[in-house]
Protein backbone atom coordinates (compact mmCIF):
# COMPACT_ATOMS: atom_id res chain seq x y z
CA UNK A 1 0.00 0.00 0.00
CA UNK A 2 1.40 3.39 -0.98
CA UNK A 3 0.16 6.92 -0.65
CA UNK A 4 1.20 10.37 -1.66
CA UNK A 5 1.61 13.17 0.83
CA UNK A 6 2.26 16.74 -0.20
CA UNK A 7 5.43 18.30 1.21
CA UNK A 8 3.54 21.04 3.08
CA UNK A 9 1.43 18.38 4.77
CA UNK A 10 4.41 16.86 6.66
CA UNK A 11 3.83 19.09 9.72
CA UNK A 12 0.14 18.19 9.70
CA UNK A 13 1.02 14.51 9.41
CA UNK A 14 3.55 14.88 12.23
CA UNK A 15 0.85 16.40 14.41
CA UNK A 16 -1.33 13.42 13.52
CA UNK A 17 1.42 11.06 14.73
CA UNK A 18 1.70 12.99 18.00
CA UNK A 19 -2.08 12.95 18.41
CA UNK A 20 -1.95 9.13 18.33
CA UNK A 21 0.06 9.20 21.54
CA UNK A 22 3.56 8.91 20.10
CA UNK A 23 6.54 10.85 21.38
CA UNK A 24 7.85 12.04 18.03
CA UNK A 25 11.52 12.43 17.12
CA UNK A 26 12.49 14.03 13.82
CA UNK A 27 15.35 15.94 12.23
CA UNK A 28 15.44 19.72 12.59
CA UNK A 29 18.01 22.25 11.43
CA UNK A 30 20.44 22.63 14.31
CA UNK A 31 23.02 25.33 14.77
CA UNK A 32 25.53 23.61 12.50
CA UNK A 33 23.68 20.74 10.93
CA UNK A 34 20.57 18.63 11.28
CA UNK A 35 19.90 16.91 14.59
CA UNK A 36 17.15 14.58 15.75
CA UNK A 37 15.01 16.15 18.43
CA UNK A 38 11.82 15.45 20.33
CA UNK A 39 9.12 17.36 18.47
CA UNK A 40 6.28 18.96 20.40
CA UNK A 41 2.93 19.67 18.82
CA UNK A 42 3.94 23.29 18.27
CA UNK A 43 7.30 22.44 16.73
CA UNK A 44 6.15 20.35 13.78
CA UNK A 45 6.94 23.21 11.36
CA UNK A 46 10.62 22.90 12.32
CA UNK A 47 10.91 19.38 10.94
CA UNK A 48 13.36 19.39 8.04
CA UNK A 49 13.70 16.27 5.93
CA UNK A 50 16.38 17.62 3.66
CA UNK A 51 19.54 16.27 5.23
CA UNK A 52 22.23 13.72 4.43
CA UNK A 53 23.58 12.71 7.80
CA UNK A 54 23.34 13.64 11.48
CA UNK A 55 26.47 13.44 13.61
CA UNK A 56 24.93 11.07 16.16
CA UNK A 57 23.14 7.91 15.02
CA UNK A 58 19.48 8.61 15.84
CA UNK A 59 18.17 5.09 16.38
CA UNK A 60 21.04 3.89 18.54
CA UNK A 61 20.69 7.03 20.63
CA UNK A 62 16.98 6.36 21.13
CA UNK A 63 17.19 2.62 21.75
CA UNK A 64 20.39 2.55 23.84
CA UNK A 65 20.68 5.99 25.39
CA UNK A 66 24.27 7.14 25.98
CA UNK A 67 23.57 6.99 29.74
CA UNK A 68 20.88 4.71 31.01
CA UNK A 69 19.86 3.56 34.48
CA UNK A 70 19.55 -0.22 34.77
CA UNK A 71 18.20 -0.26 38.31
CA UNK A 72 18.13 1.55 41.61
CA UNK A 73 19.12 -0.03 44.88
CA UNK A 74 17.76 1.59 47.98
CA UNK A 75 17.06 0.34 51.48
CA UNK A 76 18.17 -3.16 50.50
CA UNK A 77 15.72 -3.40 47.60
CA UNK A 78 16.33 -3.41 43.87
CA UNK A 79 13.95 -1.35 41.75
CA UNK A 80 14.10 -2.18 38.08
CA UNK A 81 14.01 0.98 35.98
CA UNK A 82 12.72 -0.43 32.70
CA UNK A 83 11.27 1.94 30.10
CA UNK A 84 7.51 2.39 30.44
CA UNK A 85 5.98 -0.51 28.46
CA UNK A 86 3.02 1.68 27.50
CA UNK A 87 5.02 4.58 26.13
CA UNK A 88 5.03 4.94 22.37
CA UNK A 89 7.80 6.54 20.37
CA UNK A 90 7.89 7.38 16.68
CA UNK A 91 10.94 8.47 14.73
CA UNK A 92 10.40 10.29 11.45
CA UNK A 93 12.96 10.76 8.72
CA UNK A 94 15.66 8.17 9.50
CA UNK A 95 17.72 7.09 6.54
CA UNK A 96 18.08 3.47 5.35
CA UNK A 97 21.63 3.03 6.68
CA UNK A 98 20.44 3.92 10.18
CA UNK A 99 17.42 1.61 9.98
CA UNK A 100 19.70 -1.20 8.84
CA UNK A 101 22.04 -0.39 11.71
CA UNK A 102 19.11 -0.75 14.09
CA UNK A 103 18.38 -4.14 12.59
CA UNK A 104 21.99 -5.10 13.34
CA UNK A 105 21.71 -3.85 16.92
CA UNK A 106 18.65 -6.10 17.25
CA UNK A 107 20.81 -9.11 16.49
CA UNK A 108 23.07 -8.23 19.42
CA UNK A 109 20.52 -7.09 21.96
CA UNK A 110 17.72 -9.53 21.12
CA UNK A 111 20.12 -12.48 21.11
CA UNK A 112 19.45 -14.55 24.24
CA UNK A 113 19.44 -13.48 26.96
CA UNK A 114 17.53 -10.52 25.56
CA UNK A 115 18.34 -7.03 26.75
CA UNK A 116 15.01 -5.99 28.30
CA UNK A 117 15.72 -2.25 28.02
CA UNK A 118 16.38 -2.46 24.30
CA UNK A 119 13.48 -4.83 23.80
CA UNK A 120 11.00 -2.57 25.57
CA UNK A 121 12.07 0.45 23.55
CA UNK A 122 12.20 -1.39 20.24
CA UNK A 123 8.73 -2.85 20.75
CA UNK A 124 7.30 0.61 21.26
CA UNK A 125 9.17 2.28 18.43
CA UNK A 126 7.47 3.19 15.17
CA UNK A 127 9.94 3.78 12.35
CA UNK A 128 9.02 6.26 9.61
CA UNK A 129 12.07 5.99 7.38
CA UNK A 130 13.16 8.29 4.61
CA UNK A 131 14.87 7.02 1.49
CA UNK A 132 17.92 9.03 0.50
CA UNK A 133 17.69 11.63 -2.21
CA UNK A 134 21.19 13.01 -1.76
CA UNK A 135 24.52 11.66 -0.61
CA UNK A 136 27.88 13.20 0.21
CA UNK A 137 31.51 12.17 -0.12
CA UNK A 138 31.36 9.99 3.02
CA UNK A 139 28.39 7.77 2.09
CA UNK A 140 29.17 4.20 1.00
CA UNK A 141 25.95 2.32 1.81
CA UNK A 142 25.67 0.86 -1.69
CA UNK A 143 28.75 -1.28 -1.02
CA UNK A 144 26.99 -2.90 1.92
CA UNK A 145 23.48 -3.13 0.52
CA UNK A 146 22.13 -0.88 3.28
CA UNK A 147 20.93 2.05 1.15
CA UNK A 148 20.12 4.44 -0.41
CA UNK A 149 16.65 2.84 -0.31
CA UNK A 150 15.01 0.54 2.18
CA UNK A 151 13.15 -2.70 1.44
CA UNK A 152 12.14 -3.77 4.94
CA UNK A 153 12.44 -2.96 8.62
CA UNK A 154 10.19 0.12 8.53
CA UNK A 155 6.62 0.87 9.53
CA UNK A 156 6.30 3.68 7.02
CA UNK A 157 8.73 4.76 4.35
CA UNK A 158 8.98 8.15 2.70
CA UNK A 159 10.62 9.00 -0.60
CA UNK A 160 11.15 12.65 -1.47
CA UNK A 161 9.62 13.36 -4.90
CA UNK A 162 10.14 17.14 -4.67
CA UNK A 163 6.70 18.67 -4.20
CA UNK A 164 5.41 15.51 -2.53
CA UNK A 165 6.53 12.34 -0.78
CA UNK A 166 5.71 8.78 -1.65
CA UNK A 167 4.61 7.06 1.57
CA UNK A 168 4.82 3.27 1.64
CA UNK A 169 3.33 1.14 4.39
CA UNK A 170 5.56 -1.61 5.78
CA UNK A 171 3.67 -2.93 8.79
CA UNK A 172 0.28 -3.27 10.42
CA UNK A 173 1.21 -0.59 12.90
CA UNK A 174 2.13 1.72 10.06
CA UNK A 175 -1.17 0.98 8.31
CA UNK A 176 -3.08 1.78 11.50
CA UNK A 177 -1.34 5.10 11.83
CA UNK A 178 -2.26 6.26 8.34
CA UNK A 179 -5.68 4.63 8.40
CA UNK A 180 -7.50 7.78 9.44
CA UNK A 181 -5.18 10.30 7.81
CA UNK A 182 -6.47 11.16 4.39
CA UNK A 183 -3.93 10.83 1.57
CA UNK A 184 -4.45 9.93 -2.08
CA UNK A 185 -3.15 6.53 -3.13
CA UNK A 186 0.05 6.50 -5.14
CA UNK A 187 -0.04 5.86 -8.86
CA UNK A 188 2.45 4.11 -11.09
CA UNK A 189 3.83 7.53 -12.00
CA UNK A 190 4.78 8.12 -8.34
CA UNK A 191 6.44 4.71 -8.14
CA UNK A 192 8.41 5.36 -11.31
CA UNK A 193 9.49 8.72 -10.00
CA UNK A 194 10.65 7.04 -6.78
CA UNK A 195 12.77 4.67 -8.81
CA UNK A 196 14.36 7.65 -10.55
CA UNK A 197 15.15 9.33 -7.23
CA UNK A 198 16.71 6.16 -5.86
CA UNK A 199 18.70 5.57 -9.02
CA UNK A 200 20.06 9.10 -8.91
CA UNK A 201 20.93 8.78 -5.24
CA UNK A 202 22.65 5.48 -5.90
CA UNK A 203 24.65 6.91 -8.78
CA UNK A 204 25.71 9.91 -6.72
CA UNK A 205 27.58 7.70 -4.25
CA UNK A 206 31.29 7.90 -4.99
CA UNK A 207 32.81 6.02 -2.09
CA UNK A 208 32.97 2.24 -2.18
CA UNK A 209 34.36 -0.66 -0.25
CA UNK A 210 34.93 -3.98 -1.96
CA UNK A 211 33.42 -6.65 0.29
CA UNK A 212 34.24 -9.63 -1.91
CA UNK A 213 36.10 -12.20 0.18
CA UNK A 214 36.43 -9.57 2.87
CA UNK A 215 36.59 -11.92 5.83
CA UNK A 216 39.44 -13.91 4.40
CA UNK A 217 41.27 -10.70 3.50
CA UNK A 218 40.86 -9.22 6.98
CA UNK A 219 41.86 -12.40 8.80
CA UNK A 220 44.91 -12.71 6.61
CA UNK A 221 45.83 -9.10 7.38
CA UNK A 222 45.71 -9.28 11.19
CA UNK A 223 49.47 -8.84 11.35
CA UNK A 224 49.76 -6.39 8.46
CA UNK A 225 51.98 -3.34 9.17
CA UNK A 226 49.03 -1.12 8.19
CA UNK A 227 47.74 -1.28 11.78
CA UNK A 228 50.97 0.20 13.10
CA UNK A 229 50.93 2.92 10.48
CA UNK A 230 47.36 3.85 11.38
CA UNK A 231 48.33 3.96 15.05
CA UNK A 232 50.79 6.71 14.21
CA UNK A 233 47.85 8.90 13.13
CA UNK A 234 45.03 7.72 15.43
CA UNK A 235 44.52 9.71 18.62
CA UNK A 236 42.51 7.01 20.37
CA UNK A 237 39.67 9.46 20.97
CA UNK A 238 36.89 6.96 20.29
CA UNK A 239 34.83 9.37 18.18
CA UNK A 240 34.37 6.59 15.62
CA UNK A 241 32.85 4.37 18.32
CA UNK A 242 30.51 7.07 19.58
CA UNK A 243 29.11 8.03 16.17
CA UNK A 244 28.94 4.48 14.80
CA UNK A 245 25.31 3.31 14.57
CA UNK A 246 26.30 -0.33 15.16
CA UNK A 247 28.83 0.12 17.98
CA UNK A 248 27.00 -1.44 20.90
CA UNK A 249 29.56 -1.69 23.71
CA UNK A 250 28.77 -0.30 27.12
CA UNK A 251 30.44 0.26 30.45
CA UNK A 252 28.61 -0.16 33.76
CA UNK A 253 29.02 2.21 36.70
CA UNK A 254 27.41 2.69 40.09
CA UNK A 255 26.35 6.23 40.93
CA UNK A 256 25.22 7.33 44.36
CA UNK A 257 21.91 9.13 44.32
CA UNK A 258 22.62 11.86 46.81
CA UNK A 259 19.03 12.96 47.41
CA UNK A 260 17.65 9.49 48.21
CA UNK A 261 20.70 7.74 49.61
CA UNK A 262 20.25 5.06 46.98
CA UNK A 263 22.56 3.90 44.24
CA UNK A 264 21.88 3.91 40.53
CA UNK A 265 23.53 1.30 38.39
CA UNK A 266 24.00 2.86 35.01
CA UNK A 267 25.43 1.87 31.72
CA UNK A 268 27.22 4.28 29.43
CA UNK A 269 28.47 3.94 25.87
CA UNK A 270 31.99 2.59 25.65
CA UNK A 271 34.36 2.13 22.75
CA UNK A 272 37.18 -0.22 21.81
CA UNK A 273 39.41 2.69 20.74
CA UNK A 274 39.62 3.88 24.34
CA UNK A 275 42.62 2.83 26.41
CA UNK A 276 40.62 1.50 29.38
CA UNK A 277 38.43 -0.70 27.23
CA UNK A 278 40.47 -3.91 27.57
CA UNK A 279 42.18 -3.02 30.83
CA UNK A 280 42.17 -5.62 33.60
CA UNK A 281 43.46 -5.90 37.16
CA UNK A 282 47.06 -5.15 38.11
CA UNK A 283 47.71 -2.89 35.12
CA UNK A 284 47.03 -5.53 32.51
CA UNK A 285 45.66 -4.36 29.19
CA UNK A 286 44.98 -6.70 26.32
CA UNK A 287 44.92 -3.91 23.77
CA UNK A 288 47.46 -1.52 25.19
CA UNK A 289 48.69 -0.53 21.75
CA UNK A 290 46.59 1.74 19.57
CA UNK A 291 47.38 -0.51 16.63
CA UNK A 292 45.55 -3.36 18.37
CA UNK A 293 42.58 -1.10 19.14
CA UNK A 294 42.25 0.16 15.56
CA UNK A 295 42.58 -3.38 14.33
CA UNK A 296 39.78 -4.40 16.69
CA UNK A 297 37.45 -1.64 15.45
CA UNK A 298 37.96 -2.33 11.77
CA UNK A 299 37.97 -6.10 12.13
CA UNK A 300 34.89 -6.13 14.29
CA UNK A 301 32.90 -4.29 11.62
CA UNK A 302 34.44 -5.94 8.58
CA UNK A 303 35.26 -9.42 9.83
CA UNK A 304 34.17 -10.67 13.28
CA UNK A 305 30.54 -9.56 12.90
CA UNK A 306 30.08 -12.17 10.19
CA UNK A 307 30.99 -15.00 12.58
CA UNK A 308 29.11 -13.47 15.47
CA UNK A 309 25.87 -12.31 13.90
CA UNK A 310 25.86 -13.44 10.27
CA UNK A 311 26.52 -10.18 8.46
CA UNK A 312 29.06 -7.40 8.30
CA UNK A 313 28.79 -4.87 11.12
CA UNK A 314 29.11 -1.75 8.96
CA UNK A 315 26.26 0.02 7.17
CA UNK A 316 28.34 2.55 5.24
CA UNK A 317 26.88 5.64 6.92
CA UNK A 318 30.28 7.37 6.70
CA UNK A 319 30.13 8.86 10.21
CA UNK A 320 33.43 7.40 11.41
CA UNK A 321 35.20 8.81 8.36
CA UNK A 322 33.58 12.21 8.68
CA UNK A 323 34.31 12.53 12.40
CA UNK A 324 37.83 11.09 12.59
CA UNK A 325 40.17 13.94 13.59
CA UNK A 326 43.08 12.01 12.08
CA UNK A 327 41.43 11.39 8.73
CA UNK A 328 41.35 7.62 9.09
CA UNK A 329 38.98 6.14 6.55
CA UNK A 330 37.68 2.60 7.02
CA UNK A 331 37.07 2.18 3.27
CA UNK A 332 40.64 3.21 2.53
CA UNK A 333 41.96 0.82 5.19
CA UNK A 334 40.25 -2.04 3.41
CA UNK A 335 41.52 -0.82 0.03
CA UNK A 336 45.06 -0.62 1.41
CA UNK A 337 44.83 -4.15 2.78
CA UNK A 338 43.75 -5.22 -0.70
CA UNK A 339 46.76 -3.45 -2.14
CA UNK A 340 44.47 -1.23 -4.22
CA UNK A 341 45.76 2.05 -2.82
CA UNK A 342 49.10 3.03 -1.29
Amino acid at each position, binding site marked *: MSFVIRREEIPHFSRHVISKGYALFAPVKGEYRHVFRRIGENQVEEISLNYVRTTMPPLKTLLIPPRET*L*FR*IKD*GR*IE*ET*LPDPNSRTAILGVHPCDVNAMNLLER*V*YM*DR*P*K*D*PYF*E*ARRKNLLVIALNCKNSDEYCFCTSLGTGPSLEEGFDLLLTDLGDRFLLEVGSKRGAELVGDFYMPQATSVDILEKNDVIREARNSIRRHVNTAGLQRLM*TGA*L*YNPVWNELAEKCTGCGACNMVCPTC*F*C*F*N*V*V*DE*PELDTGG*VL*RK*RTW*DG*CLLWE*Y*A*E*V*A*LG*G*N*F*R*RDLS*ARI*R*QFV*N*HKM*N*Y*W*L*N*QYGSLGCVGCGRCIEQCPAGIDITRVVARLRGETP
Partner: protein
Amino acid sequence: MLENPYIPVFAKVVSVRNENSTTKTFTLRMVNGGAMRFRPGQFDIVSCFGVGESAFSICSSPEEKDVFENTVRRVGRVTTALFNTKPGDVLGVRGPYGKPWPLEKAAGNDLILIAGGMGLAPLRPVIHYVARHRDLYGSVDILYGARTPGDMIYTYEFDSWRNIPNTRLYLTVDYVPPDVSWEHDVGVVTELLRYVKPRMRYTTVFICGPEVMMKFASQMLLRIGFYPSEVYLSLERRMKCGVGKCGHCQIGYKYVCKDGPVFNMEEIGLLPDVIE
Protein backbone atom coordinates in the same frame (compact mmCIF):
# COMPACT_ATOMS: atom_id res chain seq x y z
CA MET B 1 7.70 -9.14 33.26
CA LEU B 2 10.78 -9.45 31.10
CA GLU B 3 13.69 -11.48 32.38
CA ASN B 4 16.44 -9.03 33.28
CA PRO B 5 19.97 -10.44 32.99
CA TYR B 6 21.57 -7.39 34.63
CA ILE B 7 19.79 -7.64 37.96
CA PRO B 8 21.72 -9.49 40.64
CA VAL B 9 20.27 -11.54 43.45
CA PHE B 10 21.32 -10.95 47.03
CA ALA B 11 23.89 -13.17 48.68
CA LYS B 12 25.04 -12.99 52.27
CA VAL B 13 28.66 -13.29 53.28
CA VAL B 14 28.81 -16.40 55.48
CA SER B 15 32.51 -16.34 56.24
CA VAL B 16 35.75 -14.84 55.08
CA ARG B 17 39.03 -16.76 54.94
CA ASN B 18 42.45 -15.17 54.59
CA GLU B 19 44.40 -16.88 51.83
CA ASN B 20 47.38 -14.54 52.03
CA SER B 21 48.07 -10.86 52.63
CA THR B 22 46.26 -9.72 49.46
CA THR B 23 43.77 -12.53 48.92
CA LYS B 24 40.62 -13.65 50.69
CA THR B 25 38.03 -16.30 50.02
CA PHE B 26 34.41 -15.32 50.57
CA THR B 27 31.81 -17.95 51.32
CA LEU B 28 28.40 -16.76 50.16
CA ARG B 29 24.84 -17.97 50.57
CA MET B 30 21.87 -16.85 48.48
CA VAL B 31 19.51 -14.77 50.58
CA ASN B 32 16.45 -16.22 48.79
CA GLY B 33 17.55 -19.76 49.67
CA GLY B 34 18.43 -20.61 46.07
CA ALA B 35 21.61 -22.38 45.05
CA MET B 36 24.47 -21.42 42.76
CA ARG B 37 24.29 -24.39 40.39
CA PHE B 38 27.53 -24.13 38.48
CA ARG B 39 30.02 -26.35 36.75
CA PRO B 40 33.78 -26.14 37.40
CA GLY B 41 35.32 -23.30 35.38
CA GLN B 42 32.24 -21.06 35.34
CA PHE B 43 32.26 -17.61 36.89
CA ASP B 44 29.90 -15.26 38.64
CA ILE B 45 29.69 -11.47 38.82
CA VAL B 46 29.66 -9.97 42.29
CA SER B 47 28.23 -6.53 43.09
CA CYS B 48 29.29 -4.22 45.85
CA PHE B 49 26.40 -1.78 45.54
CA GLY B 50 27.64 1.75 45.12
CA VAL B 51 31.06 0.60 43.97
CA GLY B 52 30.50 -1.77 41.08
CA GLU B 53 30.68 -5.30 39.78
CA SER B 54 33.53 -7.69 39.03
CA ALA B 55 33.74 -11.19 37.60
CA PHE B 56 35.27 -14.01 39.68
CA SER B 57 35.79 -17.72 39.19
CA ILE B 58 33.51 -19.77 41.37
CA CYS B 59 36.06 -21.74 43.33
CA SER B 60 34.06 -23.98 45.67
CA SER B 61 33.08 -27.59 45.14
CA PRO B 62 30.32 -27.90 42.52
CA GLU B 63 28.61 -30.47 44.71
CA GLU B 64 28.13 -27.98 47.49
CA LYS B 65 24.69 -26.55 46.89
CA ASP B 66 24.14 -24.53 50.02
CA VAL B 67 27.02 -22.08 49.74
CA PHE B 68 29.58 -21.11 47.14
CA GLU B 69 32.93 -19.35 47.21
CA ASN B 70 34.86 -16.65 45.40
CA THR B 71 38.54 -16.05 45.97
CA VAL B 72 39.36 -12.39 45.58
CA ARG B 73 42.65 -10.59 45.34
CA ARG B 74 42.64 -6.94 46.34
CA VAL B 75 43.61 -5.10 43.17
CA GLY B 76 41.08 -2.32 42.60
CA ARG B 77 37.98 -0.51 43.79
CA VAL B 78 35.48 -3.38 43.79
CA THR B 79 37.88 -5.86 45.32
CA THR B 80 38.90 -3.36 48.00
CA ALA B 81 35.22 -2.85 48.83
CA LEU B 82 34.79 -6.62 48.97
CA PHE B 83 37.72 -6.84 51.37
CA ASN B 84 35.88 -4.54 53.73
CA THR B 85 32.81 -6.78 53.93
CA LYS B 86 32.19 -8.90 56.99
CA PRO B 87 30.10 -12.00 57.64
CA GLY B 88 26.46 -10.96 57.49
CA ASP B 89 26.98 -8.29 54.85
CA VAL B 90 24.90 -8.56 51.70
CA LEU B 91 26.33 -8.51 48.18
CA GLY B 92 24.76 -8.89 44.75
CA VAL B 93 25.51 -11.93 42.60
CA ARG B 94 24.77 -12.84 39.00
CA GLY B 95 25.60 -16.06 37.21
CA PRO B 96 26.91 -18.65 36.80
CA TYR B 97 28.21 -17.69 33.37
CA GLY B 98 30.44 -19.17 30.73
CA LYS B 99 31.56 -22.49 29.39
CA PRO B 100 33.03 -24.85 32.01
CA TRP B 101 36.06 -27.11 31.85
CA PRO B 102 35.23 -30.13 29.63
CA LEU B 103 35.10 -32.59 32.51
CA GLU B 104 32.66 -34.93 30.74
CA LYS B 105 34.76 -35.02 27.61
CA ALA B 106 37.90 -35.63 29.64
CA ALA B 107 36.38 -38.56 31.53
CA GLY B 108 38.56 -41.64 31.30
CA ASN B 109 41.65 -39.55 30.66
CA ASP B 110 44.51 -38.51 32.87
CA LEU B 111 44.42 -34.87 33.90
CA ILE B 112 47.20 -32.34 34.18
CA LEU B 113 46.14 -29.15 35.94
CA ILE B 114 48.55 -26.24 35.60
CA ALA B 115 47.91 -23.15 37.70
CA GLY B 116 49.75 -19.92 38.28
CA GLY B 117 48.96 -17.66 41.23
CA MET B 118 45.26 -16.85 41.40
CA GLY B 119 44.75 -19.21 38.46
CA LEU B 120 44.27 -22.01 40.94
CA ALA B 121 40.81 -20.63 41.78
CA PRO B 122 38.87 -21.99 38.76
CA LEU B 123 40.76 -25.29 39.04
CA ARG B 124 39.86 -25.89 42.68
CA PRO B 125 36.31 -27.04 41.75
CA VAL B 126 37.93 -29.49 39.32
CA ILE B 127 40.04 -30.95 42.09
CA HIS B 128 37.03 -31.27 44.38
CA TYR B 129 34.99 -32.83 41.57
CA VAL B 130 37.70 -35.35 40.77
CA ALA B 131 38.08 -36.25 44.42
CA ARG B 132 34.37 -36.97 44.57
CA HIS B 133 34.31 -38.91 41.28
CA ARG B 134 37.76 -40.41 41.47
CA ASP B 135 37.02 -43.43 39.28
CA LEU B 136 36.08 -41.22 36.29
CA TYR B 137 39.65 -40.10 35.71
CA GLY B 138 43.11 -41.62 35.50
CA SER B 139 46.10 -40.07 37.21
CA VAL B 140 45.90 -36.42 38.18
CA ASP B 141 48.90 -34.12 38.31
CA ILE B 142 48.48 -30.66 39.78
CA LEU B 143 51.29 -28.23 38.96
CA TYR B 144 51.06 -24.99 40.88
CA GLY B 145 53.37 -22.02 40.80
CA ALA B 146 53.30 -18.69 42.61
CA ARG B 147 55.65 -15.77 43.08
CA THR B 148 56.59 -16.69 46.66
CA PRO B 149 55.38 -19.35 49.11
CA GLY B 150 53.34 -16.64 50.83
CA ASP B 151 51.44 -15.89 47.61
CA MET B 152 49.97 -19.38 47.36
CA ILE B 153 46.27 -19.91 47.95
CA TYR B 154 44.35 -22.91 49.34
CA THR B 155 47.54 -24.13 51.08
CA TYR B 156 45.36 -25.55 53.88
CA GLU B 157 43.90 -28.04 51.36
CA PHE B 158 47.17 -29.21 49.85
CA ASP B 159 47.48 -32.22 52.15
CA SER B 160 43.98 -33.41 51.37
CA TRP B 161 44.68 -33.03 47.66
CA ARG B 162 47.83 -35.14 48.01
CA ASN B 163 45.71 -37.77 49.71
CA ILE B 164 43.38 -38.14 46.73
CA PRO B 165 44.35 -41.53 45.22
CA ASN B 166 46.67 -41.41 42.21
CA THR B 167 47.04 -37.65 42.55
CA ARG B 168 50.23 -35.66 42.85
CA LEU B 169 50.72 -32.00 43.70
CA TYR B 170 53.90 -30.25 42.54
CA LEU B 171 54.69 -26.77 43.80
CA THR B 172 57.11 -24.12 42.67
CA VAL B 173 57.78 -20.47 43.39
CA ASP B 174 59.72 -17.79 41.56
CA TYR B 175 61.44 -16.61 44.69
CA VAL B 176 61.89 -17.71 48.31
CA PRO B 177 62.33 -14.84 50.79
CA PRO B 178 65.37 -15.35 53.09
CA ASP B 179 63.40 -16.15 56.25
CA VAL B 180 61.05 -18.70 54.64
CA SER B 181 61.67 -22.42 54.50
CA TRP B 182 60.68 -24.08 51.24
CA GLU B 183 61.14 -27.72 50.38
CA HIS B 184 59.63 -27.60 46.86
CA ASP B 185 60.83 -26.29 43.51
CA VAL B 186 62.04 -22.82 42.61
CA GLY B 187 61.41 -21.74 39.03
CA VAL B 188 58.58 -21.31 36.58
CA VAL B 189 55.60 -23.63 36.70
CA THR B 190 56.30 -25.11 33.26
CA GLU B 191 59.46 -26.67 34.67
CA LEU B 192 57.27 -28.89 36.85
CA LEU B 193 56.18 -30.67 33.68
CA ARG B 194 59.42 -32.67 33.87
CA TYR B 195 57.93 -34.63 36.79
CA VAL B 196 54.98 -35.72 34.69
CA LYS B 197 55.10 -38.59 32.22
CA PRO B 198 51.93 -37.99 30.25
CA ARG B 199 50.17 -40.87 28.53
CA MET B 200 49.88 -39.24 25.12
CA ARG B 201 46.36 -39.17 23.61
CA TYR B 202 44.96 -40.16 27.01
CA THR B 203 45.64 -36.92 28.82
CA THR B 204 43.76 -33.63 29.00
CA VAL B 205 45.41 -30.45 30.27
CA PHE B 206 43.66 -27.55 31.99
CA ILE B 207 45.65 -24.33 32.44
CA CYS B 208 44.83 -21.12 34.26
CA GLY B 209 47.18 -18.36 35.25
CA PRO B 210 48.71 -15.16 33.97
CA GLU B 211 48.42 -15.10 30.20
CA VAL B 212 52.18 -15.14 29.66
CA MET B 213 52.45 -18.27 31.81
CA MET B 214 49.66 -19.92 29.80
CA LYS B 215 51.49 -19.03 26.63
CA PHE B 216 54.72 -20.73 27.74
CA ALA B 217 52.93 -23.71 29.25
CA SER B 218 50.85 -24.36 26.15
CA GLN B 219 53.86 -23.95 23.87
CA MET B 220 55.80 -26.47 25.91
CA LEU B 221 52.89 -28.91 25.86
CA LEU B 222 52.71 -28.70 22.08
CA ARG B 223 56.46 -29.27 21.92
CA ILE B 224 56.26 -32.47 23.95
CA GLY B 225 53.52 -33.80 21.67
CA PHE B 226 50.13 -32.60 22.90
CA TYR B 227 47.52 -31.64 20.32
CA PRO B 228 46.01 -28.15 20.68
CA SER B 229 42.62 -29.85 21.10
CA GLU B 230 43.88 -31.54 24.28
CA VAL B 231 44.86 -28.31 26.01
CA TYR B 232 42.30 -25.99 27.61
CA LEU B 233 42.93 -22.49 28.93
CA SER B 234 40.76 -20.26 31.09
CA LEU B 235 41.08 -16.64 29.98
CA GLU B 236 40.58 -13.41 31.82
CA ARG B 237 39.13 -10.30 30.21
CA ARG B 238 37.40 -7.13 31.31
CA MET B 239 33.69 -7.93 31.62
CA LYS B 240 30.73 -5.71 32.33
CA CYS B 241 27.70 -7.84 31.52
CA GLY B 242 28.62 -11.54 31.39
CA VAL B 243 25.99 -12.20 28.72
CA GLY B 244 27.59 -11.13 25.44
CA LYS B 245 26.27 -7.58 25.21
CA CYS B 246 28.78 -5.10 26.63
CA GLY B 247 31.47 -6.16 24.17
CA HIS B 248 34.49 -5.84 26.43
CA CYS B 249 35.62 -9.45 26.57
CA GLN B 250 35.80 -10.03 22.84
CA ILE B 251 38.87 -11.72 21.41
CA GLY B 252 38.46 -11.80 17.66
CA TYR B 253 34.96 -13.11 17.11
CA LYS B 254 34.83 -14.92 20.46
CA TYR B 255 33.18 -13.60 23.58
CA VAL B 256 35.12 -14.78 26.64
CA CYS B 257 31.94 -14.52 28.75
CA LYS B 258 29.79 -16.86 26.67
CA ASP B 259 32.15 -18.73 24.30
CA GLY B 260 34.67 -19.09 27.17
CA PRO B 261 36.22 -18.41 29.63
CA VAL B 262 37.49 -21.96 29.01
CA PHE B 263 38.83 -22.34 25.51
CA ASN B 264 40.47 -25.11 23.67
CA MET B 265 43.85 -24.08 22.26
CA GLU B 266 42.60 -25.04 18.84
CA GLU B 267 39.82 -22.44 19.11
CA ILE B 268 42.01 -19.54 20.10
CA GLY B 269 45.17 -20.40 18.23
CA LEU B 270 44.60 -17.89 15.43
CA LEU B 271 42.86 -15.12 17.34
CA PRO B 272 44.57 -11.78 17.90
CA ASP B 273 45.17 -10.03 21.23
CA VAL B 274 45.26 -13.35 23.07
CA ILE B 275 48.55 -12.97 24.83
CA GLU B 276 49.55 -9.54 25.96
